[in-house]
Structure formats: C-alpha cells, structure tokens
C-alpha cells in the first residue's frame, strides 16, 4: 500500500456548511481537518490519501477580493504542503466554478498538481478549461455521489505524479490538447461500425467532438473613410520577384512587410506569388488580384480614402496551424495599430 498522499480540498461556504448566499462573503479559512463536503472526498480517497486541510472561501469573497483570496490560498498551500489540491465539485455554480479553476491555477503555479470538477457549461470551463484539469459533473449538486469517485481517482493519480491517459479514459474534460495514439481497431472498421450504430439508433461517440470556432467582436465601423489610412494585407504569398527574403511556400512562420509607398500599382514581373495552395500564375500576371493596390491608388486620388498605408503585409496562408496564424495576425494588427492605420483589407486565397 502506498504511503497516504496529502490532499488539500477547496470548497465554498455552502459546501462547508457555514451558510448559503449570506455567507458568500466569508474570507478564506484554513481548517486543519475534514469539513463539510470534504468528508465525501475523504471517504472516496479511503486510506490512500489524507485531507490535511480544507480551504473554505465564500464565492463572493473570491470574486470581489481575488488577490487576497489567491494570496491566502497560496499561503495555505505553502504551509500545508499537499501532494495535490482538489477544488469543488462546483456543478453549475458559476462563481464557485471560476473560483475552483483559479485555485487550481494558483496551486499549479506553486508546483502542486490540481483537479476540480464542474458541469461542462460552467463558465469556469470556458475560462480555464485549457490549463486546468476538470472532471465533468451533472448540473445539479444531486450528482455529488457520481462526481466524487472520479475526482478522487484523478487526485490520487496526480498526487503520485502518474502519467495521465486520454480525457475519455481518465474521465476529465479535454483541455484542447490532442495527441496521436493507436486505437484497438483500424479506422475503416471503426467507421463502418459507427455508421451502423448510428443507423440503428444506438448511442455513439464522435472521435472528434464538435468545437465551435471562436467568434470575434466586430470592430466599430470606420467613421470617415476619406480621412482614414487603409492597409493592404494578403495571405496569397505575394513577394517581390525572386523572393529575396526567402518566404516559404506554406506553414508561415513569419509575415513580410513591403514598402508600396512609391508604387501606383503592382506590376507583373516585379512580384510573384509563392504559395502551394493555389494556381499562382494568374496572380503572377496580375498581382492586383491579391493585393489590389491599383484600385486603392485610384480611390486615394479621388479622395474616397485618406491614404494607402505605405506598407503591404503578406504571408503564405496555407499549411499553417491556426494558433500560428493567430499569432501572425496579432503581430500584423499591432503594427498597424501602432502606425495609426484606420482599416485593413485582407485578401485571402
């Protein structure tokens, strides 16, 4: 039998039994014993682990006095020196869920592995689901008996620094990490079996669950176009002829910035598109198809826009991981903001 691991359990005022909403302002209290809902966790841990401290905090206190609360948790962890921190389960309680997730982050920063539990729609998941280990629960606290055992099991694994298996096999919510691995059956069999299962009305689990892409708050419209400088950006991989800066044909690692200040239009023979994702010869014959400078100069002369930004930005938008593309986009945007550019046109191939 392993030596019992040391566990600290973070719970809110309600699950500590000190009150409901009225006690939500309770500051962080450290009790060197098992309190309230921590008893259920201790029971599930059995003799393998000992809850050496229960941290109790009112949900409002954690929200309103975040720094004080985090500091108190940090101090408690330093003095209690647990092998793992467990927070919640928070079920669908939003403030509690966010607090649990944040407490787990504090623990991780202190080098203490941590795990929490809440309903998948709890805002704590959306805010911190990438960094924090979260066990899914029912929405209602009536699901406590089902929530605690997987939470305890994961806590023990983390405490013992054991390697973690997949989200499905271990029972935690995916943190957006995907890794290669082998399944027991080849793909074609899994596919046809899944189809028959689906056709026969039986439950099935997609190997890639639907993940909605992040939406973006729209920027305010341009107030006065004729006073605005507009930048041209393209992911068509347009570079000066000869590709002097060695832009790759895909998997963009950086973006490129070229001065177009002296140019009225992009002339074929002076530019080329270097990009493995589309037939580039038409753009080579007429670079304005992806960087429409000629049209923009006309509009600038006619006073429709204030000016064309002196720099054009380009990169090869193909075979580029989304995270990388985001970084590059942010980079371009911050340069444009610094240059007080008012708007951008991005031509995508």
């Amino acid at each position: 039998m392993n030596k019992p691991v040391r566990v600290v359990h973070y719970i809110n005022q309600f699950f500590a039994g000190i009150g409901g909403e009225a006690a939500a302002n309770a500051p962080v209290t450290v009790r060197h014993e098992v309190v309230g809902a921590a008893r259920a966790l201790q029971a599930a841990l059995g003799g393998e682990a000992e809850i050496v401290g229960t941290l109790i905090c009112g949900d409002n206190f954690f929200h309103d006095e975040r720094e004080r609360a985090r500091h108190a948790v940090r101090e408690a962890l330093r003095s209690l020196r647990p092998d793992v921190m467990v927070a919640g389960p928070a079920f669908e309680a939003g403030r509690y869920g966010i607090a649990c997730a944040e407490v787990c982050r504090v623990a991780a920063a202190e080098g203490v592995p941590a795990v929490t539990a809440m309903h998948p729609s709890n805002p704590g998941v959306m805010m911190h689901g990438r960094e924090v280990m979260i066990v899914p629960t029912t929405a209602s606290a009536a699901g406590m008996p089902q929530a605690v055992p997987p939470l305890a099991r994961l806590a023990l694994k983390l405490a013992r620094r054991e390697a973690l298996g997949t989200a499905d096999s271990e029972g935690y919510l995916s943190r957006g990490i995907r890794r290669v691995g082998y399944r027991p059956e080849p793909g074609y069999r899994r596919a046809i079996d899944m189809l028959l299962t689906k056709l026969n009305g039986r439950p099935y689990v997609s190997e890639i669950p639907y993940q909605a892409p992040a939406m973006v708050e729209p920027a305010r419209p341009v107030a006065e176009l004729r006073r605005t400088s507009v930048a041209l950006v393209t992911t068509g991989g347009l570079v000066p002829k000869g590709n002097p800066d060695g832009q790759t044909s895909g998997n963009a690692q950086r973006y490129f910035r070229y001065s177009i200040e002296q140019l009225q239009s992009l002339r074929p023979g002076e530019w080329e598109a270097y990009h493995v994702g589309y037939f580039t010869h038409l753009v080579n014959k007429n670079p304005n198809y992806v960087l429409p400078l000629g049209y923009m100069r006309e509009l600038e002369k006619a006073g429709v826009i204030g000016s064309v930004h002196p720099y054009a930005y380009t990169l090869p938008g193909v075979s580029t991981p989304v995270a990388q593309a985001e970084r590059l986009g942010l980079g371009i945007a911050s340069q444009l903001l610094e240059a007080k550019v008012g708007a951008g046109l991005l031509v995508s191939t």
Partner: protein
Amino acid sequence: MISAIYDLALTTGANRVVRGCRIEHVCGNPDLGPDKDREYGMRIITTALQALTTEVSGPTLFDPQGASTETIHAS
C-alpha cells in the same frame, strides 16, 4: 476580408467578408478582358470599403453587385 470561399471566413471569426471571384483571381476575372476585369475589381474594392463603414453585429457577407462573373468548371 475578401475571399472567393467566403463561407469559411464567416464561420471562423471574420465579421466583414466580401465575396471575391475565384481563389486563383480573387479581385477580378481575367476572362472578362482587361476593361471589364478592372471594372469588376473596382466593384469588389468599393464593396470592401463600404463594408468598412457599415455597422455589423456579427459575420456579414457583402456581395459586389452586378453581372455574375463566375465561370463554372464542369465538363
């Protein structure tokens, strides 16, 4: 954003999306001949500028008006 395959842009976070012609020639169409190609290109750009000055609440497609300029590849 000006794109010929605008659906992807609209569903992955771009809020002002202008329909381009074809991936291989987004801001124009060489099959139209130089003059009409230029007219079409200008129409796309002015539509884009119009989009910049338009209030939007979420992903919105701006379609350059005028005669259809897409050719369909099919045998």
